[in-house]
């Protein structure tokens, strides 16, 4: 009986993500992956049907892991600033602790695999986020606004800082590393921008 070797499966996943990040989807092949893992091509085909199946399965699993980590300790019923703070902590942690996976998602965003991956983000993740925003509107903590406007104000500043951090430099090539002071200063500005009072 052939035993599914979990260590090998994990190695295949890790190396596949690394290979997509370094060579892109066009440069990715099962043969290259097998070489990178030091295993036979046949072994990979036992786990996955083909290149598309492999990338889709890995993307879906990684997206699930990311959404679980993003929802850790997050309560959609909490106050807006508290909930958003947890979101910022979780999202920053994910990107900073998983730079390769984050780069993998960046590649996925502009690929044909995007749709399948997004479908698995729908569900618990989308429900929690939607409920959270609806609660905040109901409680008068933020104004009603198009979802894209909300997302851009609530998260794009965070992802900009994280991109600077990952690349190690900001505008004009200035060296940059994230710290708590910068993170929470930006967060306070975001909360201010989203607060109905800030219009006055």
């Amino acid at each position, binding site marked *: 009986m052939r035993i599914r070797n979990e260590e090998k499966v994990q190695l295949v996943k890790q190396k596949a993500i690394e290979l997509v990040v370094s060579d892109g989807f066009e440069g990715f092949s099962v*043969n290259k992956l097998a070489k990178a893992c030091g295993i036979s*091509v*046949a072994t990979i085909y*036992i786990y996955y*049907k083909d290149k598309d199946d492999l990338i889709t399965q890995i993307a879906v699993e990684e997206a699930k892991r990311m959404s679980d980590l993003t929802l850790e300790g997050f309560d959609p019923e909490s106050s807006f600033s508290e909930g958003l703070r947890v979101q910022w902590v979780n999202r920053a942690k994910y990107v900073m602790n998983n730079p390769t996976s984050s780069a993998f998602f960046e590649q996925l965003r502009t690929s044909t695999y995007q749709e399948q991956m997004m479908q698995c983000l729908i569900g618990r993740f989308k429900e929690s986020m939607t409920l959270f925003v609806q609660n905040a509107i109901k409680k008068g903590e933020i104004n009603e606004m198009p979802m894209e406007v909300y997302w851009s104000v609530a998260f794009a500043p965070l992802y900009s800082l994280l991109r600077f951090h990952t690349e190690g430099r900001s505008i004009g090539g200035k060296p940059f590393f994230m710290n708590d002071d910068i993170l929470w200063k930006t967060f306070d500005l975001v909360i201010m921008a989203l607060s109905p009072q800030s219009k006055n």
Partner: protein
Amino acid sequence: MNTEHILVFRSNIKTASDRFAVERVLDSHPHIDQWTVDCDDTDCVLRVVSSKLTHKQVIAMVTKCGYNCEELID
């Protein structure tokens, strides 16, 4: 998933018309649960899910259609 039932081969089934040539035989076989060919791969890997067939039997079937097929060793 029982990986024991997955048979993997190197082939020269490269194009859509190559695929079409083996499709009839593999699709209609009562002991083949599922099969795929990765035409993008250099080995054109044929993957057959079957609890009853052996590598040898699949090789015979594909060869009869006029294609190369050899077992890929795990």
